[in-house]
């Protein structure tokens, strides 16, 4: 782009054109004069947003421009968010509210800037930290922001913002140290002992907990040093030396054999000599052993059950052994068969989910507890038909189709269990898609360009019977053949032909309630970008949405059938995609892969766009059941020649995905806003 700044008169002319100011007898002279001082890139952004806002209303455009003239410079990076906040306010409550929202946003931004140049926000570091934690050993942890830094052994809370250290680098390091210590609590057994007996002896429980946390920080730092010495060094440098009167305790807790019991012993010692407040170490988070142990106990119960069931299956006493039985309710293990399995049993012989559970149990106990090695007895699974009474009213019409559902607990099908209704998706705002196309015009162009390479048009087809160019290699070969008396080939040309990709793609879009807001916007915008790009490729594609409410209301919304064109009506249906109910995924996969299989192409691809794990009303489909059923449905599709790929928007790592989609066929996007940019790239990679 031309980097020259726009002069005031140029800005004035462009604003005039965008906002039709002359018609309204307003003059852009004043804002233009102010905007002249901005760098070109910022000027373009102001003009861009003025244009966007003016699509909604000229007054809104004018408001944005006049405020931007004074605010843009100080907003910097946050300018786009500032405008978006304004547009949101306008949609919600009109022009006056917009002015207020814009001013408030700018003020908050200024305060924050003033408070610290070196502060770091959770949002700024989340992506980096969550990947860092994801790579570390042990059970996956969710990362969220909260008031204090602490963990319940499954979720890890970190402060919204850190301003303690003098500069950004040090604050980032502080975030990392906090997170690492909390990870270490879950990894190195902070919650494996109940500290209540000791805590009860403290008159001030809060103070007791603070000491507990401090001693644990000493011990855990040493644990970290064994595995990740560089990280431990960073932490040590950050905290500085321990106070002299604590050095002995620190040394004792740093021994490799130290456990949480030693930390409790140190506490008891402190208590006896009369403990004051702990010295202030910002990298030491808080401890809530009660909450953590509650989560831990629930997890242990769950995982014990998983391991024991897996053992059942391994030993042939479980549902798999009875799989030959055609009944819906295969008999479960007999009581007499609950013997203890060899404690030295090989973790690797367990199926992956049970292996994960067993590893997690090892993390909680240091070993697999012997109870877990008893295979589960009878009654381990009661067939529960949780909620299957119709809840919504619409259901007097018979369903369009019935689908079986897989019940992993019984290792059996539930026949005709899901009632599927297929209907046309309602149309949405007709201008919306155009707005998205305008807003992303640049992105669409660049995606198209990159997709062109896929089309293979640029790739010459060599050795053709006919073509625009002579294939020199082939000519030489033919001449050689002729000379040697062999039959020369007559494929002597290069033809720039469109390569037949023979690919049909089904996009299955999650319309569950949880997608409301950003995710839904991101899904719709992504579909627009995809359509724009795929149209240029010529692949055959369809878009369907899914949602529902219990097994008797599984809804499939037609947005674009394979035969449909990407026309105004289709665009309106894309615009109309909205967040509805739940995510019963298996049945949707079955139905849509069925439609896909009927396509006459060599390759068939099912791409799901969703924001998390399968879920439905009532507890049954949530969790393992839904995951197993969906997995099953994807396997069935695979057998029919449909490959699936799942794009999940889930900022929390989505630990269930490997199990659901197999090792290669998914990607996780941690920020909905990134979806539109990423999706085209994913599609290109998938089909290139």
């Amino acid at each position, binding site marked *: 782009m031309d980097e020259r700044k726009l002069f005031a008169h140029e800005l004035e002319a462009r604003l005039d054109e965008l906002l039709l100011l002359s018609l309204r007898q307003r003059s852009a002279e004043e804002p233009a004069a102010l905007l002249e001082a901005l760098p070109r890139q910022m000027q373009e952004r102001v003009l861009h947003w003025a244009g966007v806002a003016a699509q909604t209303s000229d007054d809104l455009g004018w408001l944005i421009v006049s405020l931007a003239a004074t605010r843009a410079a100080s907003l910097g990076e946050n300018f786009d968010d500032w405008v978006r906040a304004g547009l949101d306010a306008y949609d919600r409550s009109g022009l006056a509210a917009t002015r207020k929202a814009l001013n408030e946003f700018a003020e908050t931004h200024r305060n924050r800037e003033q408070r610290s140049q070196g502060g770091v926000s959770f949002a700024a570091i989340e*992506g*980096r930290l969550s990947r860092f934690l994801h*790579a570390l050993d042990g059970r996956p942890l969710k990362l969220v922001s909260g008031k204090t830094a602490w963990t319940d052994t499954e979720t890890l809370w970190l402060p919204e913002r850190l301003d303690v250290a003098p500069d950004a680098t040090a604050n980032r390091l502080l975030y990392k140290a906090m997170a690492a210590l909390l990870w270490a609590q879950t990894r190195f057994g902070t919650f494996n002992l109940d500290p209540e007996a000791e805590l009860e002896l403290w008159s001030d429980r809060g103070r007791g907990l603070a000491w507990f946390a401090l001693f644990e920080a000493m011990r855990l730092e040493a644990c970290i040093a064994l*595995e990740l010495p560089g990280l431990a060094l*960073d932490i040590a440098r950050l905290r500085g030396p321990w106070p002299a009167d604590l050095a002995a305790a620190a040394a004792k807790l740093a021994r490799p054999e130290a456990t949480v019991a030693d930390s409790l012993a140190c506490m008891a010692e402190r208590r006896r000599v009369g403990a004051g407040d702990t010295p202030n170490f910002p990298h030491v988070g808080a401890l809530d052993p009660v909450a953590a142990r509650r989560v831990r106990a629930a997890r242990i119960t769950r995982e014990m059950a998983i391991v024991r069931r897996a053992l059942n299956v391994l030993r042939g006493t479980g549902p798999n052994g009875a799989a030959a039985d055609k009944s819906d309710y295969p008999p479960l293990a007999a009581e007499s068969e609950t013997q203890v399995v060899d404690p030295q049993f090989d973790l690797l012989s367990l199926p992956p989910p049970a292996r994960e559970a067993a590893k997690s149990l090892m993390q909680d106990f240091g070993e697999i507890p012997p109870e877990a090695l008893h295979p589960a007895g009878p009654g381990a699974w009661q067939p529960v038909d949780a909620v299957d009474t119709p809840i919504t009213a619409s259901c007097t019409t018979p369903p369009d189709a019935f689908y079986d559902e897989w019940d992993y607990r019984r290792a059996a099908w539930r026949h005709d269990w899901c009632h599927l209704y297929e209907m046309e998706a309602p149309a949405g705002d007709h201008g919306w898609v155009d707005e998205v196309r305008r807003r992303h015009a640049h992105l669409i162009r660049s995606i198209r360009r990159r997709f062109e390479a896929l089309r293979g048009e640029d790739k010459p087809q060599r050795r053709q019977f006919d073509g625009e160019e002579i294939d020199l290699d082939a000519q030489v070969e033919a001449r*050689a053949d002729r000379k040697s008396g062999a039959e020369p080939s007559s494929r002597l040309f290069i033809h720039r032909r469109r390569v037949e990709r023979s*690919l049909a793609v089904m996009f299955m879009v999650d319309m569950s309630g949880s997608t409301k807001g950003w995710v839904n916007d991101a899904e719709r915008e992504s579909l627009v970008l995809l359509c724009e790009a795929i149209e240029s490729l010529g692949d055959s594609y369809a878009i369907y949405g899914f949602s529902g409410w219990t097994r008797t209301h599984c809804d499939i919304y037609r947005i674009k059938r394979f035969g449909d064109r990407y026309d105004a009506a289709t665009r309106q249906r894309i615009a109309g995609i909205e967040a509805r109910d739940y995510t019963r995924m298996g049945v949707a996969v079955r139905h849509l892969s069925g439609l896909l299989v009927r396509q006459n192409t060599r*390759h068939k*691809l099912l791409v799901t766009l969703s924001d998390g794990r399968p879920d439905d009303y009532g507890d049954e489909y949530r969790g393992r059941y839904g995951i197993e059923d969906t997995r099953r449905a994807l396997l069935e599709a695979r057998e029919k020649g449909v490959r699936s790929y799942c794009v999940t928007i889930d900022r929390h790592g989505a630990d269930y995905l490997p199990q659901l989609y197999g090792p290669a066929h998914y990607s996780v996007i941690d920020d909905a806003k990134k979806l539109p940019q990423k999706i085209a790239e994913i599609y290109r990679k998938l089909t290139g």
Partner: protein
Amino acid sequence: MNNTNPAGRTDVRADLRKLATPLVRLASEPYYHATGDELAVFEAAARSCLPVMLKGPTGCGKTRFVEHMAWRLKRPLVTVACHDDLTTADLVGRYLIVGDETVWMDGPLVAAVRAGAICYLDEIVEARKDTTVVIHPLTDSRRALPVEKRGEYIEAPPDFMLVISYNPGYQSVLKEMKPSTRQRFVALDFDYPEAEVEARIVAHEGGVDADTAKKLVKLGSLTRKLKGAGLDEGAGTRLLVHAAQLIAAGMAPPIACTAAIARPLADEADTRDALDDLIRAVF
């Protein structure tokens, strides 16, 4: 080109020889650390004249394994790196014009068949579909290769062996291997070796001490957990060996790891930063 000049002719012949497929005879044992029963399976397949498919992520020792087996079985090795422009002629051979004469030049596949060599087609899915079909008659009981151009039908000697590699981690649906091809092969699964073994490999190959090797392997295993969460694939043994080599050449470990591991793996900012954090944590 002056074909009346005998000296010139010799030059052309010499040039042609340079073009001929190199039959590699490994004189010394290529270092390979076995991780399972792959040696025995491969030897059995060789004895039974069955083709072999090596599956696994990139940089986990597939190529090295084939080299090792070629040495072990005392057979020459022909390696072809497949790519999407690879034509049948590139594999089978073609006529060339030398002066006024035509000279047939065996392609690597034919050369391997004639010599009773091991022919290793690396990353077979990259090759064009119409190219892959020429290997079919070599992979069933016919064990022969028709060379249409020459009207020749070459039966493979018992020592000829076809080996292909394939990375199932590929995400393109268009690059899946067809069952009709897959099912002709005895398959061996490759994966990153266990930590201790991998450390020994890295130490040996990279020329670093055991402690550094252990740290590199630790780093490798951490990056592998990021598969699907920022990375398409974690660091293979090859990248670890590269980092080790840089370290052995005197570079500071974190810089070596950034250059040899983090940068080749990731472009995206958050992932790059996280990889840098991991490198810092390990060293």
